[in-house]
């Protein structure tokens, strides 16, 4: 499944692509081709601007002093850039504690998800015709379509019954189940890519079933497991809806919830600290995502459709 995707080869054009365009160039009239090229670059520029301008504005706002934020003609680049907004953000809201809560919830969710998903994904990959594997695939597909509200109401009632409302443990349980479909999907793909012949060869050499799993399969699966865990971490770190419903006391709340506290009840926000805190909240998932992005895009949907 983690098939090499040319789209992800990296910045440079491949030899094949270059040759392709040279032949095309020799054939077509140059002026028309140049016009087409210009159009393409304009479109690319438009895309880059559309992608980048909100981000740049967020960064700009985060570093602006109050006077510039209140001015009627806000500029792109702060005249007097400042870190005060970051300091103020920590003063106004319990950012550190909420980051701690987010970290605990996301780490626990990622570790537990992968720990319970890996064995099942392995079975799904090796016995993909079994009834169990089919049922699991069906559940994965269906779980994509369900409005969370239909699941969260009963979960809320049940968790309340067992006193796990307003606790990170309850949230972690929900996150685990929420990440499971995608984790199973990813991991089953990675497991399919482990050659059965290697396992069989080890078995012929007299290794027991567990031995084969531990010393042959697991090492080959590790990169996939790490990618899946990081993905589950990011998902939990960014999650908002379940945390909003399940966590009531500010002491327990995760970072996305605390961010909304910067926006007052009247919708009037303290813009500088809001932007500063938002930037900080984004950094961890951004860094992790950059590490695994290739694996996610090429490994999942593309692979799934091809198989």
């Amino acid at each position, binding site marked *: 499944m983690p098939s090499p995707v*040319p789209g992800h080869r990296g910045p440079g054009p491949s030899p094949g692509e270059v040759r392709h365009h040279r032949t095309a160039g020799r054939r077509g009239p140059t002026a028309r081709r140049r016009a087409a090229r210009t159009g393409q670059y304009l479109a690319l520029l438009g895309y880059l601007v559309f992608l980048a301008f909100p981000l740049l504005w*967020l960064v700009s706002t985060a570093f602006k002093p109050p006077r510039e934020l209140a001015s009627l003609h806000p500029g792109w680049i702060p005249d007097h850039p400042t870190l005060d907004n970051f300091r103020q953000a920590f003063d106004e809201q319990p950012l550190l504690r909420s980051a701690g809560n987010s970290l605990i919830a996301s780490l626990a969710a990622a570790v537990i998800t992968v720990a319970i998903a890996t064995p099942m994904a392995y079975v799904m990959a090796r016995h993909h015709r079994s009834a169990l594997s089919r049922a699991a695939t069906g559940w994965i597909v269906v779980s994509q379509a369900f409005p969370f509200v239909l699941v969260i109401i009963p979960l809320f009632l*049940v968790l309340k019954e067992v006193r796990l409302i307003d606790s990170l443990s309850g949230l972690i349980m929900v996150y685990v189940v929420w990440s499971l479909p995608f984790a199973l999907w990813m991991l089953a793909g990675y497991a399919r890519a482990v050659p059965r012949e290697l396992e069989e060869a080890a078995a012929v050499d007299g290794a027991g079933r567990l031995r084969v799993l531990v010393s042959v399969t697991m090492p080959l699966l590790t990169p996939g497991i790490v990618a899946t865990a990081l993905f589950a971490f990011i998902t939990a770190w960014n999650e908002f809806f379940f945390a909003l419903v399940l966590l009531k006391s500010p002491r327990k709340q995760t970072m996305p919830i605390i961010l909304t506290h910067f926006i007052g009840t009247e919708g009037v926000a303290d813009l500088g600290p809001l932007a500063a805190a*938002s930037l900080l909240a984004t950094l961890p*998932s951004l860094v992790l995502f950059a590490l695994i992005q290739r694996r996610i895009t090429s490994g999942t949907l593309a692979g799934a459709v091809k198989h």
Partner: protein
Amino acid sequence: MARRQDGTHGAWFLVLPALIPILLLSVGPLLYGIALAFTDSQAGRTDPTQWIGLLNFQDLLRDTLFWESFRIGLVWAVAVSVPQFLLALGLALLLHQDLRFRWLSRALAIVPWAMPEVVVGIMWRLVYHPDAGVLNETLGTHRDWLGSLSTALPAVVVVGIWARLPQVTVTLLAGLSNVPRELHEAAAMDGAGAWRRFRAVTWPAIRPIALAISALSFIWNVNSFALVYVLTGGGPGGRTRLPMLFAYEEAFRYGQFGYAAAMGCVLVAVVSILLAVHLVARLKGDDEA
């Protein structure tokens, strides 16, 4: 038969760790949620919850606010998904070309994707801000984009498009790698124009992945919550109150669990029907191919 037994025999202990939480925390609550739709379950109720049959659904039928949010939800899902898909398709074809700065768009595309939805909402609030926002400053206007009845929904739709555009683009780009280059070149040699090459070579190759991602993104949009919750909270005057926001308020602000669950059931039904139509179209297409 023997083989299957052999397969599942040793496998149960590998499957249980995942199967138990799936049954307890996913399948169970789902069935419970459907059951709740037929009860008068409420927050803080002292007398026992009772079965009330289809009463919740009858109330839903008459609830103009629900239908309004249902309509807004459909408008939102279509208005986001369709332009997003078309833009993404164009961009994927563009980025598939050998252009300079392609790496930059790839690098940038990661950011919206990895950002918490809450932050995306906050970021665009800053862009749309009546006084300190870059949009008014650039256009020389003085509008409250998110606060006025006429612009709120379009403004939110733009954010919806922005938020997942990279995701859809990169997925389609991955699909484009399936397109056999030789076929493309052969078609060009035969004098086929760009459009004919797209119709005859590119589209058939990316069709499965295009259908999959368009269905997924439609579902994601129907189920949107955080983005709009942060941007407008459903306002002004309910103009952006998507079904999920409506159901959330019913359940966790007014404590109407049974009623909100019924709403969830209606949404599931609609999404399932749309998905079924989509899948049938896909199967039919495969037959033709």
